[in-house]
């Protein structure tokens, strides 16, 4: 279980612990089953190529979900993800590593909530950001 993170533990610039994924074709099929997204570009190479793609690609929402896990792993049970925003900008391919990263961009207290804003993104093996985004989380405070 993830360790609890507190508001006081983070500063602007703090990096989130990396979350590394390497989705296999099987993971994409599991995602299809979990999400009811049965579009063939995610599991049928011929079909994917017939639509002009180089091969099967990773579901955008699976990557978004990885980014949410990046956050929940980091904040622990006591944290709350309030908002996330992700753009699916580049494609990722099954069998290739997806590195989920983030850095803290802002922290402030709003009412009784301790808010932390982050930049989050997925990175392909070439270091390109394939799904950039941002997030707002609330953390417990030690005070």
């Amino acid at each position, binding site marked *: 279980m993830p360790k609890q993170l507190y508001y006081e533990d983070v500063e602007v610039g703090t990096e989130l612990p990396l979350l590394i994924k390497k989705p296999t074709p099987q993971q994409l099929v599991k*995602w299809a*089953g979990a999400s*009811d997204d049965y579009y063939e570009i995610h599991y049928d190479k011929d079909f994917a190529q017939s639509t002009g793609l180089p091969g099967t690609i990773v579901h955008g929402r699976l990557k978004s979900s990885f980014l949410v896990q990046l956050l*929940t792993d980091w904040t622990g049970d006591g944290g709350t*993800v309030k908002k996330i925003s*992700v753009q*699916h900008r580049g494609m990722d391919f099954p069998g290739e590593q997806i590195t989920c990263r983030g850095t803290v961009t802002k922290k402030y207290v709003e009412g009784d909530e301790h808010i932390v804003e982050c930049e989050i993104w997925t990175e392909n093996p070439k270091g390109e950001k394939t799904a950039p985004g941002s997030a707002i989380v609330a953390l417990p405070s030690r005070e």
Partner: protein
Amino acid sequence: MAEQVITEELRACIGMQSEPTVIEIEKVMIKRFAEAIEDPNPLWQDEEYARNARYGGIVAPPGFLMTLMMRGPAMELPFELPFTRRLDGGGDWEYFKPIRPGDVLTVVTKLVDVREREGRMGTMVLLVSETTWKNQRNELVAKSCGTSIRY
């Protein structure tokens, strides 16, 4: 090359709202989700652990809603677009309340914008829609906004 892709007819669809879809949240759906993204956090699956944790029971991870997009109301246009291919352009999710197994969500989607773009794959139309997720107590649990790319 496609001529005017965003016709008056398409523009007139902005503001269109779907019929509400009702989704019952079940433990298995959450478990499948956690398994699919390989997230072992016990808060999503382990009753024993979750009972003693913050929410007093299993909750759905925030990303879980992303698996419900296909089950939620589809933004059916009243006519066919001249594109059959689609990609998911990403989106925003805002969370207000935890979602638990046994919750019954009512989901409504509204088309809020239509944009055109030239991309690597030629002319693309971007359909932007906003979705609201309410639970059985009529509490807003989440709001999301997504872009569907058709090309």
